[in-house]
């Protein structure tokens, strides 16, 4: 059983849902990334997603794109990111990387998984790797007991959703909207029903991400999901850490996360 499987077994046992914040590694620097991951975990996050900056992230909206650009301007390298994550092994929450296939491929799939595992990372979300192209990486992940989290979107036909579910380990990442990352005021009205359908097809945990930013969203989605992923709303707050008062930013991120976690717990 992988670290992520254990987490969801435990959460499900306690009738709880996962809060999963996303932060960009190295935005504005790795020291801050360490600090913010500690804050987010202390506030009660179940798992943290760490974005590996990439030069051409086509699934990302302006907020996350800009965070990648800020990190890459400082010439951040994968090796330094993994070294930093390796120093966070005492965190109670598992870490997963959001990483482009371009990066995994360049390092070599075996090397990527080995290095991430070595750093204590529990799995990977590879947003530009489709199920048809995923066999090679999936086999390596399987061998290493490293979760390969695959995505389902509103445009994914139902038969295909089942196929993706069969090939996924850890949890299914259910993308809430047809579009790129970024906060939304409204989520699609069919979302809850659609996740509900997938829920009946698989025992895998289903976590919903993209667009989620308010306690209202959290209350709406918590009943059908095992966890909720919040990215841009957090990265937007972190954006001020480059120029402003870091402690104030950490406080604002923690308070924001705590508010969403409270909304998540209040219903479960």
């Amino acid at each position: 059983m992988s670290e992520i499987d254990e987490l969801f077994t435990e959460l499900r046992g306690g009738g709880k849902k996962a809060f999963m914040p996303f932060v960009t590694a190295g935005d504005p620097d790795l020291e801050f990334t360490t600090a913010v991951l500690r804050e987010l975990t202390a506030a009660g996050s179940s798992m943290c997603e760490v974005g590996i900056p990439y030069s051409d992230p086509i699934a990302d909206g302006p907020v996350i794109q800009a965070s990648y650009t800020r990190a890459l301007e400082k010439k951040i390298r994968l090796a330094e990111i993994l070294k930093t994550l390796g120093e966070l092994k005492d965190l109670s929450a598992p870490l997963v990387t959001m990483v482009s296939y371009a990066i995994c491929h360049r390092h070599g799939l075996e090397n990527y998984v080995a290095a991430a595992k070595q750093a204590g990372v529990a799995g990977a979300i590879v947003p530009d790797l489709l199920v048809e192209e995923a066999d090679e990486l999936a086999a390596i992940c399987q061998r290493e007991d490293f979760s390969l989290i695959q995505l389902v979107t509103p445009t994914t036909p139902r038969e295909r959703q089942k196929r993706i579910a069969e090939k996924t380990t850890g949890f299914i990442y259910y993308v809430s909207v047809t579009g790129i990352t970024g906060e939304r005021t409204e989520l699609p009205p069919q979302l809850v029903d659609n996740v509900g359908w997938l829920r009946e097809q698989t025992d895998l945990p289903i976590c919903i991400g993209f667009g989620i930013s308010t306690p209202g969203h959290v209350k709406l989605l918590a009943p059908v999901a095992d966890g909720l992923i919040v990215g841009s709303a957090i990265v937007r707050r972190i954006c001020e850490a480059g120029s402003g008062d870091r402690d104030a930013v950490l406080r604002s991120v923690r308070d924001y996360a705590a508010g969403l976690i409270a909304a998540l717990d209040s219903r479960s």
Partner: protein
Amino acid sequence: MACMSETSTQKAVANVPDAAGRFGDFGGRYVPETLTRALDELAVEYDKAKVDAQFQAELNDLLANYVGRPSPLYHAKRLSQQCGGAQIWLKREDLNHTGAHKINNTLGQALLTLRMGKRRVIAETGAGQHGVATATACAHFGLPCVVYMGEEDIRRQAPNVFSMKLLGAEVRPVTTGSRTLRDAINDAMRDWMSSVADTHYILGSVVGPHPFPRIVRDFQSVIGREAREQSQQRLGRLPDCVVACVGGGSNAAGMFYPFVEDEGVKLIGVEAGGRSSTAGDHASPLTYGSPGVLHGSFSYVMQDEDGQTCDVHSVSAGLDYPGVGPEHSYWKDTGRVAYTECRDAEAMQGFDALAKREGILPALESSHAIAKAMEVAAGMSPDAVVLVCLSGRGDKDAAEIARLRDG
């Protein structure tokens, strides 16, 4: 030439890609799940259109009566004389409506857009030729059109920006990254991520996820088919050598594809050599790069050792791109096409030579092919024939060339 490709034992065939969009190892589909359905639909619809006589008739009618095809094959005698070697013949894609080969693809894809019942079109553009050709096809069919273009390219290809607007398209400036073609593709893909239900993305080269490399190659192959037939008619034989510039690689793929199985015909693809061979100074992934993933396909790319796409440079906006179509990677690794580079300064000399010796202003992109063809022809006998794809005309570049010379 030191940078020519190494030859492998496997021979290139025309019957590619496979159902997964693979040209040998290259190609495939590396995109967010959100786009899969639209790409699958596009592949299915294209397969139907390909064998639909009515679709083909409609496209051929447009190519003949709207674009002005077949484009002439022209013997550039005074240019040949200057080189003192082989005869240089030009496939005149510059004489197409809108001034470049790009229209061959945009009309085909606009027809596919209508077939799929989509009501809006987006595109990226570098030199602006694909943007103009897309705006033109959309005006012709009454489709709304948004073109993404990097700010740097908006500056250096201003005439095409005016044309797109006059044709009714909206030009959206892209301000991220290097503000060139690569960033324009990123933003077009992001638009498509949200708009995919009712929008078709008319991608402008043989790049991107399957099935784009195949579709664009097929629509552009009219260039090579005509050139092959014209050669047979006018010369009584096939050319000895065919030369084309390679940005994403669509004019080259269209020119080369019908010759792939003619083993006696040497094919030469010319990348943008920029200022030097140092990474960042050129846009020559086949010459200096390595296989990797960019914009949805596996192909040669300029990437650093961490997998980040490198900044690239070319004087020509249409070649200023760190990636290349997967079929070119396949042709490189099988040794079927020899890829080489041509520097900015040489391309400018090619431009001048064609202007002064033949009265033709070539696009800066095409000038790379002209310059390389002159070099190649110089070393060949007078009865040999070098056929060059003159992919576009240079009016768009006149002001930028003047600026570069004054500066």
